[in-house]
């Protein structure tokens, strides 16, 4: 038991620090490479820098993660996707109450190490002590709501942002967003790429070197991703 606790603290602190620090960098993407997911970014934006909102959103998933840990031994993807980023944000915000602090990677990484160590150790040792009624509510209320945000609210929000940004941004967001829905399972990354490529076309023309390079690079990557996900065979 003692060695499980020690290992859980180490593993949780490592993974928590890495993921929370990477999540802080998401707020400056795509200029800087972030780590997390578009949905994590959307959910963190949804809490609008309010420490209580970040905390309760994460709390909902602690209950469903406990159910998964007891049932299958998997902490569930929610620990690194939702609990660690949102609780780290909550901790950082509670400390200095400035909305922009959640975009600071060092502060977030320190908070993430604490949150990760506590949450992973708790789930690995005490998950079975959580009342079942709580995990049912999380499963029936928070999970479907989060699914609705991922599909269709988020892709539509990015798609509309593309359509409102201009003609070419809208056209390319539509094309790449539609393809990304099939290839990656969600239109959001495609819409973002479409907006960026469209901006390049508006700035320097469709036949400019930069636009052609950008669009062909995206096309090649889409083909490769489709291949590795087993959607096309050569």
């Amino acid at each position, binding site marked *: 038991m003692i060695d499980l606790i020690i290992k859980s603290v180490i593993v949780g602190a490592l993974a928590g620090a890495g993921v929370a620090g990477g999540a802080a960098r998401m707020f400056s993407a*795509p200029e800087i490479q972030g780590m*997390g997911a578009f949905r994590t970014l959307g959910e963190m934006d949804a*809490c609008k820098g309010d420490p209580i909102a970040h905390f*309760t959103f994460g709390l909902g998933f602690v209950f469903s993660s406990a159910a998964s840990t007891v049932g299958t031994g*998997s902490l569930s993807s929610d620990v690194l996707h939702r609990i660690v980023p949102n609780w780290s944000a909550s901790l950082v915000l509670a400390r200095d109450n400035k909305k922009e602090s959640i975009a600071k990677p060092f502060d977030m990484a320190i908070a993430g190490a604490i949150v990760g160590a506590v949450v992973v150790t708790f789930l690995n040792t005490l998950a079975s002590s959580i009342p079942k009624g709580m995990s*049912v509510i999380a499963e029936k*209320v928070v999970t*479907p709501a989060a699914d609705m945000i991922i599909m269709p609210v988020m892709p539509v929000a990015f798609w509309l942002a593309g359509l409102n940004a201009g003609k070419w941004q809208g056209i390319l967001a539509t094309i790449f967003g539609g393809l990304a829905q099939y290839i990656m399972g969600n239109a959001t990354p495609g819409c973002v790429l479409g907006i960026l490529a469209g901006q390049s076309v508006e700035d320097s023309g469709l036949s400019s070197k930069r636009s052609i390079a950008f669009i062909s690079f995206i096309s090649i990557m889409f083909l490769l991703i489709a291949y590795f996900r087993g959607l096309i065979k050569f």
Partner: protein
Amino acid sequence: MAENNLSQTIDEKVDFRDKANNFLMKDNALIVFMMLACAGAFAGTHIFLKYHTGSFSTTSVTVMLKGALDKENYSALLGFTGGFLLARILEGPLVGILDIGGSIMTGVATGLPALFLSMGYNIVLDNFLLSILVGACIGFVLSVIILIVRKFMPKGYGSLGTDVMMGAGNIIGEWFGPIIMLAALKYNFVAGLGSIIGGAICHEKGKPLIGGAILGAMIFGWIFSLIF
């Protein structure tokens, strides 16, 4: 004098934090976070193999890993997780956000352990310290690949992408509170009532609805489940 020293140490502390924040904001600092996250996720699988708890992978993928371990046949799992890992590693630099679900949780926490086990390198996962080291090395390699792909990517869109993402993020933020309340009301009336009350209180206090909506639904729903 003592006061002077105190304020000096505080200044130094703030200075160090700013420096650390700025350093970790550099593109290449991705390596640091990838090494940390992959070390944790890979060693989490060591815990799973030894204590049957604590895998960072998605629930369904962990169930697949368990099945592969029981049958000692890793081919289907390797195909699925390997493809996912490669697809996410290519997608990450393209869109600026690496999806840690497909890459780290599925790929590093399940796919690569399955690869090592299928080749007979069980020692990598049997030894806790070794699993942390190997995980950190995996993180290093993956982040270098991502940074190389980024170098090839056409540049020059400035901060436009970030602005668009922030704008869309604000739209999503406005949707989230009401959607939580709709889900609660679809589930049952008591949870819904809790979310209505919680949401209304939050709005009155000028905070986003989501916190109160979740807390209200959980407290009311939980009390309901105790009574009936």
